[in-house]
């Protein structure tokens, strides 16, 4: 399942349905709550999976779902349920990360793809790397702030403004974190933590 498609569907067509399920859930309708969690589980699991890594993904997801259930009475509907639930889940994941204070183990699939200079040989090499490298390991090289921003953008397809709401930061900060995160991921892909060209790293 592509979480982008899933989230897109949710964003485009099921707000009212979400709203109805939220309303019913808040009224004590267990079936509605079950349906609500079931509907949004894949994207929330995807977020948690990439936030905390494979080993802790299930625990983080359950903590996120619990936080959502607990928070439903305070959900005011000012944002979409999707955005709100991402916010709750993100905070749950951050709590999990802080609590466990660990990061996924780095592991590379094929060291032969790297040259001593850190440059990949070609775009086709990049494609090979992205097929074989551990994304968790790559994401683990980012700061938590960068990782969350990149995941919310690229995996969850949130806009910069939505990410700003989720993380309670300025849109400009979102933009910066995503750019730095992507740059760092690319550096990871080419096996070099330093930049390989002379382009400026900040606004001209």
């Amino acid at each position, binding site marked *: 399942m*592509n979480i982008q498609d899933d989230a897109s569907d949710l964003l485009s067509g099921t707000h009212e349905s979400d709203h109805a399920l939220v309303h019913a859930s808040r009224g004590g309708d267990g079936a509605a709550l079950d349906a609500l969690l079931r509907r949004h589980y894949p994207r929330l699991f995807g977020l948690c999976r990439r936030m905390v890594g494979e080993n802790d993904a299930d625990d983080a997801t359950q903590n996120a779902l619990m936080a959502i259930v607990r928070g439903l*009475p305070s959900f005011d509907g000012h944002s979409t349920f999707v955005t709100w639930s991402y916010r709750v889940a993100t905070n749950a994941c951050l709590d999990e990360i802080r609590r466990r204070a660990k990061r996924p183990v780095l592991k590379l699939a094929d060291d032969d793809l790297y040259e001593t200079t850190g440059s990949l040989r070609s*775009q086709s090499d990049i494609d090979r790397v992205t097929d074989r490298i551990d994304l968790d390991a790559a994401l683990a090289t980012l700061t938590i702030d960068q990782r969350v921003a990149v995941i919310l953008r690229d995996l969850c397809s949130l806009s910069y403004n939505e990410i700003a709401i989720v993380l309670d930061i300025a849109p400009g900060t979102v933009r910066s974190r995503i750019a730095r995160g992507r740059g760092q991921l690319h550096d990871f892909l080419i096996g070099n933590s330093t930049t390989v060209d002379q382009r400026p790293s900040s606004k001209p």
Partner: protein
Amino acid sequence: MTNNHLTDEILSALLDNENSSDSVAHVSDAHLANCTICTTRLEELRTVSEWVATSLPTTNQQRMEQTIAATLSHAASEKPLKSGRNFVRRRWMAAGAAAAIIAAGAIAIPSLSRNESRNNQASLPLATPGSSQIINGGHLILDATTDLRIPIQTALAPSPTDAKEQSGAAGNRQLNDSNLESGKTTESGSSAESSDTTPTTAPSPAAASSPNEAAPPSAGLSRDASESGFPFVTSEPHARCEPLIRKDDKRLGALLYRASADFVGEQAIVEVFALSPHDGKSAADEKVAKSSLDLRAYVLAASDCRVLSAQSFDLKK
């Protein structure tokens, strides 16, 4: 001149169609049309973005079912989703209808909460007969409809059988259908005491006047008994196992929870007991004990009350 190149911020935002002004986008497009360095960088960032976007692991249906079931069960053990305004608070412990988890024979009740005020009015929802589910992966989910709130003073009360029980060795039980039906077991070849003299639960404060009142193995608790403080223990026909367990484990206090379950394909019963804090403990020990509550959970074969799994817990209050 390197400063003439576009920054990662601009390129990344361009990739996301998130540049804040049309003028920036226009300038960026014009630059990209003539700059292979920035075009290459844009493609690099696009590759990274697509890599993250398309690498989501497939949702595991079984894990989803487990997680949602555990969440719903856990949520049900806490408080209603509705505003708590009309919810009568009282001094109860929630011994979590929360997912009690059995993994490879280990059982855990992860969530407890306590309301602070005292109120012995029985207006909490009474427990319904619980049913439990042991799902693949060895996780036991106690039914969410089962209310496991326990009056603290009740949970800490010694088992009514404690004073009477002798210190007989807990040898291997020899069980058969006839003594199971009558609530008896045979230990080391001798007949054990009948469950007719073994109460199903410890006394509640409200029921303290008759702590040793017998509960027939097939009768379970009456509604009156439930309303007086035991909303969580349901009854027959599995009440027969309780006296057998008590024979083997002299530490057991109040029976706090009972439910049926399927344990790796075998019909089972889950029973959770408070462990008596009185066994050989000093007053200081008891003071310490009152800051936590020791529980022991058993998973028993419904057919013959064999112990399939057991584990103790220390529940902080």
